[in-house]
Each structure stands twice: as C-alpha cells, then as structure tokens.
C-alpha cells in the first residue's frame, strides 16, 4: 500500500494537505457555507471541540478575509491544546462548564455569538449504541452551552450521527431553532453515518432559562409524534450540499490528477498532538509490551508505592463487563 494510498482513497485528504488545512473536515464547513450562507454577517463565532482546528481555520480565513478584520472575533474551545491560529482565541476548557460559557462571552465583550459550530466526535468504543449515545450527549452539551452564548436568530451547526435514535435529537433541536436541516456536504463520505445539523434562527421557547447545572437529557419515543417503529417520526429535511462538480469523496482518484502537475507526497499539515495511544504505540513499536515471559517496561513514575502485601487474597474476583 504505502503512504500514498490514503491520497488515492481520499481525494479530500489530499486536497486538504495541498491547501494547508489541518483536516479534511475543513471542506465540510466550506461546503455547508456554500449552501446555507452561514458566514454572512457573522462577526462573532464559536468553534466547540475545535481540535485539531480545521474549522477554526475556515472561520479565520473566511470571516477575517485577507486584511485581518479586527471586528471579527473567533473563539475555539477544546479540552486539548491546539496549535495556534491567527485571529482565533483559544480556550482550553470543558463545554459543560458554565465558566467556559462565561469566558466566551467575556471574549465577545459581553455580546452573544452569531454562529456556533461543533465538529466534535467522541472517543469511539466500536459499539454502535454506545457511540451514538455519547455523540448525542456531546451534541446536547454543545447545544446547552450554545443556549448560553448564541444570540436569538443565530445559527448552530453540529456533527450528528444518523443512527438509530437520531429522530430524538431532531425533536430536541426543533425546540430551540425554527429551522433544522440535516445536511451532508459532498466531502463527507457517502458511506459514513456522519451528517451535520444546520439549525437556523435560534428562538428558544418562551421563558427558557439556560441552565448548565443539569445536562439536557435526551427525549424518548412516544406514541403520537415520534414512534420507535411506526410511521410517525420527526424527520428533518435532508440537503446534500456542495458543488456537484466538486470532487467526489467516495471516488478513488489516480495520483496524477492533472497531466501538467507531477504528483508529490505531502506530509499532513498538523499531526495529532499527544494522542491517548501514544505511549502504547511507542511500547509496541519498540517491542516493550508485556508478554508471557516479560513485563512491560513500566514507564510511569506513579508506581512508587508498591509495598503492598503480595499475599493478598484474590479469591472473589467476580467480574462483569463494565
């Protein structure tokens, strides 16, 4: 296969490297903007779960333009550190904390945001029901902080997994926004269940008080409006967006796209910063993982206190899959 095979399998991955985007997902936001004009008149934007920062990059390039517009304020929030971007203020914080919301407002000098975007995805377990649930909770957490920072009439864009309980999420979003659309940019693969909800015109129910202390809990199925198996389900309109003549994310392209230009391998723009598997991969690469005849090289200094009596009983090791 080799390192160029990903360039062939994924045209947007290649284009992202050529155009200097940190991730191919930048094209998704660009294509969403093409369809919905999301950036029109926006001067204060929030990027939730921003790392590695490709959406912040799009916001920065699109909103500030070439002559760095000082009126435009962009705030990127993530738990992880992220390489700096021009014109983007970073907050390393938790989107479920009221303090984070307050900090965002502080950066906007007391004003609310015009646009909130969120391209966050959770650490997946591989079990579909768990992953979809956690993604839904992430979206609801993003919605919750959005209710604190978004101005009425503002827009909210977030990644959604079109899984088994997606209609429950739709029904929840429709409470807060007058228009909810499920959009699929052409740069998002046809084969993935990923899509984006474009929620326009923030109009919370009358008397709604944003509250961060309790998480927004997801809805349940009922008999009349949103059934589990029946014909009555809350489904929002679907819109495929992006230019039809644009590249096709599912197609495999030859490396030589254009006969005038020689193919050249480009390294990724921004490699991941401290992924969780870093240490395990390091041990694995250097053949240091524990085996049947050797312990793994203990990499941690947190093991100082090991003076436990090793004759501890271990007889009631009842277990379960937790």
């Amino acid at each position, binding site marked *: 296969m080799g390192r160029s095979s990903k360039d062939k399998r994924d045209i947007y991955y290649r284009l992202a490297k050529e155009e200097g985007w940190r991730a191919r997902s930048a094209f998704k936001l660009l294509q969403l903007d093409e369809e919905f004009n999301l950036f029109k008149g926006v001067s204060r934007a929030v990027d939730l779960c921003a790392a590695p920062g490709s959406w912040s990059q799009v916001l920065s390039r699109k909103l500030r333009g070439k002559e760095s517009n000082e009126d435009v304020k962009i705030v990127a929030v993530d*738990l992880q550190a992220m390489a700096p971007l021009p014109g983007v203020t970073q907050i390393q914080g938790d989107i479920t904390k009221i303090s984070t919301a307050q900090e965002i407002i502080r950066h906007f000098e007391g004003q609310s945001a015009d646009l909130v975007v969120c391209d966050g995805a*959770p*650490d997946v377990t591989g*079990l*579909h*029901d768990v992953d979809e*649930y*956690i993604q839904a909770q992430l979206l609801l957490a993003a919605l919750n902080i959005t209710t604190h920072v978004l101005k009425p009439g503002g827009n909210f864009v977030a990644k959604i997994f079109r*899984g*088994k309980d*997606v209609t429950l999420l739709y029904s929840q979003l429709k409470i807060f926004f007058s228009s909810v659309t499920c959009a*699929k940019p052409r740069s998002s693969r*046809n084969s993935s269940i990923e899509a984006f909800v474009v929620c326009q015109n923030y109009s919370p129910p009358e008397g709604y008080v944003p509250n961060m*202390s309790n*998480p927004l*809990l997801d809805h349940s199925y009922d008999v009349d409006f949103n059934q589990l*198996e029946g*014909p009555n*389900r809350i*489904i929002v*309109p*679907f*819109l*495929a967006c992006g230019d*039809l003549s644009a590249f*096709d994310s*599912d*197609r*495999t392209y*030859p*490396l030589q796209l254009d006969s005038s230009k020689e193919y050249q391998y480009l390294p990724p723009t921004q490699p991941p910063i401290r992924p*969780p*598997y*870093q*240490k*395990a991969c390091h041990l694995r690469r250097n053949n240091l*993982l*524990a*085996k*049947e005849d*050797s312990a*793994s090289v*203990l*990499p941690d200094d*947190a*093991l100082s*206190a*090991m003076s*436990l009596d*090793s*004759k*501890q*009983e*271990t007889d*009631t*090791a009842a*277990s*379960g*899959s*937790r």
Partner: protein
Amino acid sequence: MTSAESCTVLESCALVAPVTALEFLRDDYLLTGEGPILTLFSLEGSPRLRASQNVLQNFRIHGIRPKPQTRHDAHDAKPNPDQPTSDEITELAIFGGKGLRLINVSPCGRGLEVAGPLMELQDWVLDVSWLMDEPCPLLGVSIAHNAAILLEPQSGKVLSLCSCAEACLLYSALLIGQSWEESVLVGGTVFNQLVLWRPGRTGTGRQCQAGTQACALTDAQVERRLLGHSGVIFSLFYLQSSGWLASASDDRSVRLWHVGELSGSGGCGVEVPTCLRVLYGHQARVAGEDGACLLWEWEGEGRVGRTLKSHRSGGIRSLAVSNASVGKRSRWVATGGADGGVRLWKVVEQSTNSELKVEVEKEDSQMYLGFEGIGCPKVVRSVGGGHTVVTCTDQGQVSMRQDGSWKEIWHGGPDFQSYCVMEVVCIQGVWVCAVGNLNGGVQVFPLRQPGGGTFLQASEGKIHSLQWVERRIGACSRGSWCLLASGSEGLVQRWTVEVAENEETGLFLVLRKMTPFLLPPCAKQWLTAAVTVTIHSGKKKVLWVCGDRRGSLLLYKDEKEKSQRESVQEEDTQESVVGINAPIPAVATLFGVHGKQGVTSVCERRGVCYSTGRDGCVRVLALNKDSLNVRRVHHACKGMDWLEKVLFLDYSEKGTFFEARFLMAGFHSVEFVLWDPIRQEKVFTAACGGGHRSWAYIPSSGDQTLEQGTLIFIKQGTIMASRSLASSTTEIRGHTLREGLHGRGLACVCRLGELSKPGDSSEKWEVLVTGGEDTTVNVLAVRPDQGTVKVLAVIADHISNVRTLAAVPRGAKGDETNGRCRDMSFSTLVFSAGGRAQLQCYRLLIGWDEQTNLPTCQVTQIAGHRLDEKWERRRNRHKTVKMDPETRYMSMAVVQDGVEEVLLALACSDGAVRIFSVGEDSRKVELLWESFYHQRCVLSVASYSLEDIYGKTVNGAVALWDLTAVLDSKSGDSWLGPSVPCLSVPVHQSGVNALVISKQRHQQTPDDIITMATGGDDGQLSVMKIKVEMNQSDQTESLCPQLLSHWSVPLAHSAPLTALTTLSSARWASASPDQRVCVWRLCDDGLHHQGAMFTHTADAAGVWAWQREGANIQGGAYVVVCGQGLQLLKTKEIERRKVVFGDRNKQKM
C-alpha cells in the same frame, strides 16, 4: 383497495450480534447478552444452550447482575461467597441502554422467565448493583451523567436520584456497596479520570416520599480523584478483598490502583490512592480490539500470565470470570466477541498456603528433554502417539527417549555420519525406522529389534528424502506400507515393507522392490511428499500423489500387474519398449504450484487430497483418472508462509466427498503455529525458532481440538518440548460456546437456497453467503425455527474487504461419483468483489453431512481477477509510486448467465462501470467493456432482461445503459459498447446506495415495463416505472426507454437508505443505519409504508429477501439484514386500517 389495508408484520428468527454482556452463575451456568437477547448456557458436562429470550426489546444488553442470595453483613470485610444452591430461583437485573429489567432463572437452570416490565430510565445505565442491606433489596443504578438512582426493583419506582457536582459524562461506572447510604460510585470520566463519590451521603439523605417522583438533592462532591490515564476509561473493576481497583482505558493500558475499602465503614477508601501497576500489553485498545484476553500475573511484577486469544478481527466485547468454588482449583473465563461468538476457557490456579492466586504455572515454558548421545540431533519424530521420541543425530545414531531417559537404538557406521534422513512408521503394530545416508544407503529396522534390519542401496548419490506411504485398496481395508527413497537424478526407489517374525531371530523385514518413479527434471529434483489415493472409476485404482522440492505436484500410476492387464489399449506403448523396470514418469504434473520453496506434505482424507507448501498455502486437490485439479487454495494467516502439514480434526475416515475440517501446521516467523482456517485464529503457538527444523506434534490424548498438544523440536543442537511432557492436565482449555461470524461489519449478504435434513423435511436450513470487512466470505446455514447459525465455510482469498456478492444457481453436477447426494444438495456459482479491485468466483456445493448431521459446503475456486495484477508482478514496485487509483468494487450484478460464461457488471469507485466475463470451464475472467461516463464513484448496479444495466452514482443520478452491443460483439476481438447511457435520470440528492429492478412484464402491452426502486443516502426511496421500446430505425436497433411514472418517499428512513430488496412484485424491504427495516408497497395511489421493525444489526449494509417455502406469495418471506452482525426476519401480512404515507409525485415524461 383491500390490498392497501394490509400491513406487514416482521418477526425476528435469528440474530448474530456482538456479545456485550457475560456473567457466570456459580460454576454451573453462563449468561450471555447478545443484542436484546439473554441466553443461558449450562456448563456441566459439555456446555450447551438451555434457554434464550428477548428481554430488552430495542436496547442492547450491557450488563447482567445476579442478585446475591444471602444477605451479607455489611461489616464483614470479606464477602461470604455463600453459593446459592441451584434449586432456587436466581433473580437477575438485566440492563443496557436506558433499559432495565428483572429476569428469573428457574431452579436448576431450566429456563428464563420475565419477572417484571421493561423499565426505561431517563439516562444511559452504566452499572446496576443490588443493595442487599436495605430493608428489602433495592437496586442502585449509576447513569451516564455521573449520577445514581435508587430504584425499587419490582415497581421500577425511583426512590432517590443523586448527581455528582461534577456533571460530566462517564464512559464507565461502578456502584459499590451494600446499602444506598454507604455506597460509593466510581466513575470513569470523559476526561480520562476516575472519580469516587458517595451518592447516598448528600444533603438530607433519602427522605423521599412516595408521592414525589424523585427528590432533587444537593449534588455530591467528588471525594477521590485518580489521575494517570491518557485516554477515556472504558471499563472498571473493584476487588473488595484486597481493596484494588482496576481500570482499562483508551490509552491501551490497564491500571491497578490501591483504593482500600470502599463503601461501608471505609467510605471512599484510603486518603491517597496509589497506582500499583500500569499494564501495557494489548496490541490495541483494552476494549479488546486485539482479540486477546490477557491474564496478568500479580506476582510477576506485571508480566502477562497467559494470553487467551480468540475471536476474529472484531475483538472482544465482554468478559466474565466465575467465582472459584471451594475445593476447585479451576475457574471459568468467558469472552464474548464482536463477531457474536462466545468462548469459554478453564483456567487452573495454583494454590499455595490455601490462598488462591491467579497465576498460571510457569512450567509450561519450554523445557529441554536432556538429550544425551553422540552428535547433534538432526531429525526428531514421535512414536506411538505417546511421549516416546526418536531422534537421529549427525553421527548416525538413532536414540529413543522413553520414560524420561534416552537410550541408543542403533548406530550406523561411518557411512551414516554428517548427513542423515530418518522416517518412522508403524507396520502391523511394529515401529519401523528407515535411515538414509549420503551415499545412497538406507537402513530399515524395527525399533524394538534393530538387529532385524536390512540395508538397501537405493541410489548412487545421497538420499534426499525417505517417505513411508500406506498403499490401501479401498477405504477400510488395511493396506501395505511402501518405503520411498528419493535418490539422485530424480529416481525414487520403492519397496513394499512387511514385518515378519521368526522364532529364532525374532522380527525381520520382508522387502520387495517396486518399479521406481521418475521425477521431472529440474534443479532440485527430489521428492518431498507422497500419498496414495484410491479412486473408484469402474474398479478401484490406486494413484500416487507426490510433491517435489520444486513445488510441483505429481500424479503417478502403478504399472499394471500382469493379472489385471485386461485392456491392451490403455497400455502405454512406451512402457513395453523400455521394459518393466524402467522408472515410471508422472501421469500428470502441476508444475511449481507450491512455489519454488517446494511442497512440504501431501495427505488424503475421504478421497480428497491436501497438499502444503512453503508458499503458505494448503491446496485441496480433486483427483480424476489421470488428472490432478486444484479445487481450492487455503491461505494461512499473513506472514505464515511456511506450512508443513494439515492436521485433520474429524477422525472419521468414511463419509462424503466434502472437505474435512483441518488445522494448518507451519512456521510463522520464529513460531510454530497451528492455524484454524474456519475460526481464522492461531490455536497453538510455540516459539521454536522458525522453519528449517525437524519437529513432531503430539496431541494430548482425548483432545479432539488438537489445541492442547506438545511440540517436540530441535533448537540449538538439542531437543526441546514446548511444555512438560509429564503434565497431563492442561491448564487452559478453550471451548467455543457459539461460533462467531465476521467480527467486523458485514457488507453484503446473498441467499443461496434451502436445504432440508434428509428424512426430516421439518428441519430446514437456509444457506447464505456473507462478505465482510474482515476480507472473508462466509457460507452460513441458518435454521430459522431455532435461530441457529452455523459457519459452513470461510473463504479468505480477498486481500481487502468484500463489498458485494452475486450468485447464480447451477445444477448439482458437482462430483458425479456421489450421485446419492444429489437429491439433497444444490450447487451455486458465487461471485464476490470488493476492495483493491478484486473479483473472485467459486462453485459451492451445499449438501448434507450425515456424520455431523449438519449441512456442509464444498468450495471450488474457479477464478480470481484483480485490475492491478500487472502492478503486483512488477519487480521494482517498491521503488515507484503506483499512480493508478486504488479502485474498489462497490456493487455487482449478473448481466447474463450463460452456460460457458457469466457476464457481470461491476460498479467501481474510480468512476467506471465495467463488464467482465467469467468462464467456469476456462477459469478465466476477462474485462469486456468499461465506461467512465459517470466520473463519480459508481455505487450500485442492477441488470434487467439481460440487456441493460443501471449505473448509479454519488450524484444521485441513475443511468440506463443498453449493452446489447457488448453482448452481441462477444465473438469479435474488440468489444463494442455504448459510450453514453440511453437514459439518465436524477433521482437522489446524493449517492444512490441501493437499486433493485423488478423483472415483471406487462401482459397487455408488448413493451417491457421496468419497475426500478432506488434508495439514497438522503434517506429517500424512489420507485420508477420505465417503458422500454426497441426502436428499429435505420439498420440498427436502439433501445428507447421512457420514464412513465416516478413515486418517492423523501424521508423513508431517518438515516441513509443503504440497502433495498424486492419482497414480491411491488413490495420492497429497505434497511438503514437508523436500525429499522421497513416494508413498502406500491399501489396506484403511491408508496405505502407497510410495516417496520427495529433491528439490532447496526450499520445495516446489505439486505436480501426471498419467499418462504410453503407460504403464500403475499405473506411469508424471509428478510436478512447484515451490518454489525446479522438478523433474519420473517414477514407476515395482516389486515389493518389503511395508513397512507409518503407523497406522490407522479409525472409523465
């Protein structure tokens, strides 16, 4: 319209889903949770299924918590494992998703019964614990938003709800304690931390009145915080007796913490919890993605005690360990896979000072067999099936190890020094040894009495190899043994060897020389393997199948004995000229099939031959009178290129012509490995140092699986055993409770047919083929009335994932020799295609195996093709960058099913539609036509009336192609085809995922009317009627399609519609990742939603429907959905009020 008032009810028949929960009930039962289905296995004797029930409806079971039978004293630090006796009812709390339900296990494990309604909680349940110290047992439930709920189990009433001040999402949680007030919640947060807090210790406590739903209390504070993981925490476990907490994380490590006593008087444990161990050992995330279950040794300072490896690519999803019962040294470990399989292991613990430790004995590391003798051992063989080992050294000494000590048997003269070959065999109960030397001499002698041996001069030059071959006439009769000695210039001398006994001299050997064989000329002209096969063509006839060092397989015939010389015509004229003793050349040769490294073994089972070679392949050979055909090639795992032997798993000699179950023995880098081609896993490994060594594998007695054996091998000039020969008990025994399927996602499914048990037509099996991301194609048999799923064959020829399948039925011509099987078997030609532009074709013969009393499948490989095959053959490819796109085949349709060849249309990811012809007899795949018209990834293709195909693209357009020209120009050299489609209709906003065409013709009009249904990524279902006319203007005929009408349901599913199938005329079933299977019907007034069902197959990628035998056309059909697992559904029509759904936008063109 009455028809519109009917609706379709779907009902599940069989489900294969990831096993997400496992729990032992004492040592006697195992409970498994697969999707919503709870299954009870009894473990006594041979483990078997007792009961199975759907308990959580649309939730997946994530945990099973049996209620402790006896109430513990809260202050007794050591929980009293009072084992409930099996004649009591065991109550279980089953949870998963937001669902929770009580289930009772009947006394003596007779069955499962529902003990309460399904409770739906407000939030995702992570853990449930029985609080036994309450006045009546209550349930403590920890939920995903770092909160805990106190529940009254029978009514489901929420008595109390308490959340933590740190309201973050948890990936895992544990609720520890016997009462609500003293309980401690351990949460593994999304921020890679472990938090400990007490839900029962907040504010006013739990003075909750019956009237209020749940009283909001002040939030509890986090009391302990454990930092260190660098990934989210997937799983937690607390060992009360030692005060240890274990956590497994996305960072691929397991950490062990000393937290002290939690709950009760201990509160939140010690003030400063310490991390005792950081255990890195998994190749992938500890969720079990590497499919390994590691037992860690506490004593060993973090060594891995034992690796239990299982489950195909998908990894392990659940794990349970049984309580060690008093007086037993063993306990069970069960693992459940993403592949839907359940494996059970028995782990024996060593007890020291009456304390049990989870430590697997170290004695099973390799041990020396203490060889003492002259010279360096070169060959090692096992004798008598037991632990007697025979070796031959480079000094020409043959020694035997018996009862722990070595003794010399025979010592050759100087002729036998520096080089020797040795083989042993049991003839008439006597073990006979043959040793060959450098000068063409062979010494043959009985081991019991070396003096009774004979010396043979077999060759001028060195004896390259010796082979003992049993020559049998007929399956049952005992044959005679032949010794083959491969000498110089490709001459293979043969003798028949018999053992006789004389009262004076004891044993002696009677040798009779046979006509030698001549190997075909090549550089390394020597024999490496030989076997005889008896075929029944008129009369029984013995054929010799040999393998040589050049990798060729050779077929030899014994020259005819004088008495049998009936047909003079068959007599080879050449033979009479050169005389009777001239060497016999091969009748048929498969030159170099096993590669340049040579053939390593050939063997025979039930009339079928198996050969192994150092190309990493097992070839299954079908024999004819004078031809040798490769029926199938099995590859071992990647990198295992040195195969030595096949070991058969079923011992019966008699039976059908079907392939036997076998293991592949060979070397994988420095290890000796037994590879199971069906389970696709290593069942035995021993680090012997790799190839180029003599070995013997001794299965342990009574072990049917062959997994518990011992390897004897030569390493660094001495003889070693992979474990102690003395220990007869095996520490770890694996059982497969349920077979798994692909593990990773299934991309496509196709039904082949139905098979009934001979003599019992009520036992019906549906035979399906599936292809998956794990690059294999599986042949399955599903018994719908019992929900049983059996894997009949695993085909692992694809190098990338399998995305699409097609099948055309064939008459069961198969093996004519077994005509009796014909009436209960059928044959199909199956095509599979997928990533790396690979297309494979197989002939499957499905029949009934009377031995196992199950359906069985014989696979014949017909042909394989890859678009980039030329590239693979290029020599300098590591230096250059491959510029071609890595094309994937997305979809496939049979365009023409001819006798000689089948034409297939393939949708390709590089934007092309390609037509291939596959010839079964010629075993060739040819590209006939391609068009890059679409310029998009082509997602689906279907064909109609053998003339047109429909290509669908990511754009959402459907194009109709007239391929008459392609089909007509078959005889020509160049393939003509259309460059543009004759009709293109935009249907969907984005990709067209699914496309089916109903092949019904209008009776009134002469024109064909095609009904075409499409499903899109936008969730839309569309149905179009297209009239196809032949336009006979000019000289050429051209197709003139007309779109008559177009109906659609814009949001048929809330997720992409990924798969579509025709149920009957004008009825379709659709599937989607929203996990609903919907049935639609086209009436005059539009598309109607006929019924829906929630399916537990996530990521639905393929669906297939067929009419049920015996059911009327309107009703009974089966629908199979595949994705992350597989579910078989049954449809039934019932009358109900009319529900009109979907708008109608009929248009005329």
